[in-house]
């Protein structure tokens, strides 16, 4: 018994040696920071380190909940993320269905390939381009507005416009790429289903409704669950770049707030508490939506 086990190990030791490499990376940069979260319950000071800093319980959480910013930051985060979810879940599905119905092969693949491109453009460039188009000085849209005799709009400095800029630039960038997973699911649908339907005189819309959509439903549910799980994770990268003093009243979200308090002001413990709160909400959302999906349909994450 032990002999055969030894033989097994000798033959397959490389499997474990290989696996050790990613494990070490994950331990250092994923699990170690998870341990570091305890500073949310301490008054962390670099001099004492994580272990030596005194426990303070929920002090930082209480301070956050009672702070002037709490309500505002929460509302801003939810506004942008719910708006974003409502648009970014259905649009790739609709686009994928439209792609799927194109009969001309080269047209289909060209349109798809073009639609993926923005996904690879950096967020700095995206925001740069938003400035080119929506800026007040020399912005293309405002130039257009003046040309047709309309009043210029300060898109970038306006709290009301921030959510739209954020969400729709995200759509421009991500909707094509978002179709990929549905295209994949559609490519697995047996063709004879469509042929049988056509023989029976079904219209194209009926086929989409009765064949394609049911077939990709599991994929839709999984994507929706994962997207909702990130409800509090309004991306730092783009928000921070789009932020300015004038639109702060709608653009200050949890991630930018954590960054400012933590890295810029150096309030490590407080910022870690805000970050942890963020993570907990995300996890609860993931759990709730998954439960809901289990109840309603058969598909769920676990």
């Amino acid at each position, binding site marked *: 018994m032990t002999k055969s086990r030894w033989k097994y190990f000798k033959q397959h030791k490389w499997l474990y040696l290989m696996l050790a490499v990613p494990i070490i990376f994950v331990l250092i940069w994923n699990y170690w920071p998870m341990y570091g979260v305890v500073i949310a319950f301490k008054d962390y000071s670099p001099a004492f380190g994580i272990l030596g800093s005194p426990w303070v319980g929920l002090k930082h959480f209480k301070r956050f909940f009672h702070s002037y910013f709490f309500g505002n930051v929460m509302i801003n985060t939810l506004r942008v993320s719910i708006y974003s979810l409502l648009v970014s879940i259905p649009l790739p599905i609709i686009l994928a269905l439209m792609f799927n119905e194109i009969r001309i092969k080269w047209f289909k693949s060209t349109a798809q390939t073009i639609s993926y491109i923005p996904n690879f453009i950096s967020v700095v460039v995206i925001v740069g381009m938003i400035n080119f188009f929506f800026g007040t000085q020399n912005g293309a849209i405002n130039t257009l507005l003046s040309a047709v005799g309309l009043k210029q709009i300060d898109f970038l400095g306006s709290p009301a416009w921030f959510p739209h800029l954020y969400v729709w630039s995200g759509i421009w960038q991500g909707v094509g790429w978002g179709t990929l997973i549905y295209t994949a699911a559609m490519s697995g649908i047996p063709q004879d289903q469509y042929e049988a339907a056509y023989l029976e005189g079904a219209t194209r819309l009926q086929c989409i409704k009765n064949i394609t959509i049911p077939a990709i439903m599991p994929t839709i549910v999984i994507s929706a669950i994962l997207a909702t799980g990130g409800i509090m994770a309004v991306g730092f990268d783009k928000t921070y770049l789009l932020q300015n003093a004038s639109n702060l009243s709608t653009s200050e979200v949890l991630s930018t707030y954590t960054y400012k308090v933590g*890295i810029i002001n150096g309030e490590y413990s407080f910022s870690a508490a805000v970050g942890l709160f963020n993570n907990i909400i995300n996890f609860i959302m993931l759990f709730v939506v998954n439960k809901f999906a289990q109840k309603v349909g058969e598909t769920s994450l676990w």
Partner: protein
Amino acid sequence: MAKQSAMRYTRTKGDKVFDVVNGVLITIFTLIVLYPLIFVINASFSDPTRIYEVPLLLWPRGFNWRGYTEILKDKDILIGFKNAVVYTALGTVINLVVTTLGAYPLSRKELKGKGFFTLFFTVTMFFSGGLIPTYLVNQQLGIINTIWVMILPGALGVYNMILMRTYFQQNIPNELVESAYIDGANDMQLLWKVVLPLSTPIIAVMAMFYGVGRWNDYFNAMIYLQDRSKFPLQLILREILIQGKFGDSANQTLQGSAQAELMMIKLTLKYSVVIISSLPVLLFYPVVAKYFEKGILVGAIKG
């Protein structure tokens, strides 16, 4: 894919209307995606004073290269470009190595405790320490403001690893593996000589994902780097595009016409630097695009 060729039915009038409407909508969509890119290309080759003569540029006006030649003179941009190349190249190599070393064992049925290992990795997709605890770890490791902080963290994308594992499971014939074992090959040789040569699509796609992520990242550079000489291109780009600073302009004291000229250069440079910074990715893109469907799609659904 095979739908079009297999379909032989007479199109009804309703079908034709559907096709036309769908085709028109897709065309409009494609133009909306492309136009901003075309605009920037046009603007980058235009005379800056004339970019906004017409509201929406359809071709360059008053052709000029000035933006591009200025880039070659701007030290910040050049150094940033070089740094970005180094971070991206080294970082992507590490990404590929670490990801493969995780994906391959997890794809083998000989591995014991696979469920545990998979859980160990996937947990990190849903739980994270967050910004500050991660920062403290890097601080403790003493890699802040060094090249290492740009390369080592984020070496493993768990989702990518799962895509790769699934690809291995589905595309490497089991008989091939069995016979290699019988020939006395160990798993390292197997990975190197049998699995990797059969895995070009997934490796290409992974290289693209990781490479683009590294190239486009500004966040890590912003929090972890302090020396300007270490800044990658995206940080310099942020100064130029968003904060309106002009690279290493030591020319603050310029006056009159020189000042006006600087403003003009600044304007064209904004467009050309966008093109230059996106070019490496866009050149690489068509090479890899053909693998998207083959390489990841399978993995994406079953994973």
